[in-house]
């Protein structure tokens, strides 16, 4: 009897433990189930949120069109920017050109003013000398005046050379320029026996002298447009300035521009 009671007790104990474990396992399963449900709800929410974030096909199409439109706008702006850049460059070039023209006009004005404000031949020649040296950059040059008999170009003043000799009209570059009145221009380079530049000095059509340039200052590497304009000015103006100065000097320093002289000259001729 004692053994069977013991067995029953053991069975009961076993069953109690068994059911207790079963109950605990069931509770654990329920908790796990709860957690999983919660995660499922969370995941569903996330999926829904992501689904909302993904644009619809229509929105996507709209966005692609917007991108295309922005790309077009960017290309237009880049094109305009390039145009503005080119315009800016052109304006800068034009500005430099105007500055050069302005400087050239200033040189011409100063040269004309100075050469015509000289009142004696020495002053005219000094001004001519200064123009050639300072404005043109000539280093070795001479000014010749035509001696009608015996048709020789005689040097009146020279710079950077020991006594230039007289040149018969028609001989060499100087003589030919003195004869024809056509200027001679070659590129700036090492000095040689013949001048690099030779221009006539004219009183209207009459050639009264020549300016010959053999060499230029070391920094003068080429003849510029402004130099040719100055040469043209000297061709037309230097001789008349020299003639006016000669007239003034011939009048004993007194200006030949007097009322009685002018009035006499303005009287109608019969």
């Amino acid at each position: 009897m004692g053994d069977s009671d013991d067995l029953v007790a053991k069975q009961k104990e076993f069953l109690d433990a068994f059911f207790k474990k079963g109950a605990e396992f069931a509770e654990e399963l329920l908790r796990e189930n709860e957690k999983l449900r919660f995660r499922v709800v969370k995941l569903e929410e996330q999926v829904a949120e992501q689904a909302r974030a993904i644009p619809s096909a229509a929105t996507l199409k709209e966005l692609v069109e917007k991108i295309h439109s922005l790309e077009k706008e960017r290309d237009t702006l880049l094109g305009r920017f390039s145009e503005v850049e080119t315009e800016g460059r052109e304006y800068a070039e034009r500005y430099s050109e105007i500055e050069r023209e302005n400087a050239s006009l200033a040189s011409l004005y100063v040269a004309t003013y100075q050469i015509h404000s000289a009142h004696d031949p020495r002053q005219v020649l000094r001004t001519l000398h200064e123009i050639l040296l300072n404005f043109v950059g000539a280093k070795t040059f001479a000014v010749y005046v035509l001696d009608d008999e015996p048709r020789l170009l005689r040097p009146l003043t020279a710079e950077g050379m020991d006594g230039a000799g007289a040149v018969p009209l028609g001989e060499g570059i100087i003589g030919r320029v003195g004869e024809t009145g056509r200027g001679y221009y070659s590129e700036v380079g090492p000095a040689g026996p013949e001048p690099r530049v030779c221009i006539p000095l004219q009183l209207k059509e009459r050639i009264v002298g020549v300016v010959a340039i053999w060499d230029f200052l070391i920094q003068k590497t080429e003849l510029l447009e402004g130099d040719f304009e100055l040469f043209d000015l000297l061709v037309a103006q230097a001789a008349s300035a020299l003639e006016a100065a000669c007239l003034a000097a011939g009048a004993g320093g007194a200006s030949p521009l007097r009322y009685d002289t002018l009035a006499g000259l303005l009287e109608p001729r019969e």
Partner: protein
Amino acid sequence: MTALVVEDSPTMRQLVVFALRRIRGLAIVEAEDGVDALKKLQSQTFDIVITDINMPIMDGLKLVHRIRGDDALKHIPVVIITTEGGSEDRARALALGANAYITKPIQGPHVLATVKELLRIP
């Protein structure tokens, strides 16, 4: 601002003055040589001196030397104009205290740019 142009040749002086007239508000005073320039420098204030080298009585290099040796004048920027275009001449002028060196034949825009730079005019 006032600039002093020192040059014995009236032709050259007028050309430099013409170029400088493009700077708005710049007054220009002219001197015929170094001695004339020093007199003017002592009687009024200048912001810049532009001088030729070859001049009678007192040449441009002596003038620069005198300016740099005078406490009241040594701060004035000096531009030298010369016919000498060699690098040695340039170095000599700059060593004497010139701030810039312009060779003949002068170009108006170059004179203008040099003076503007020294006067810090945009």
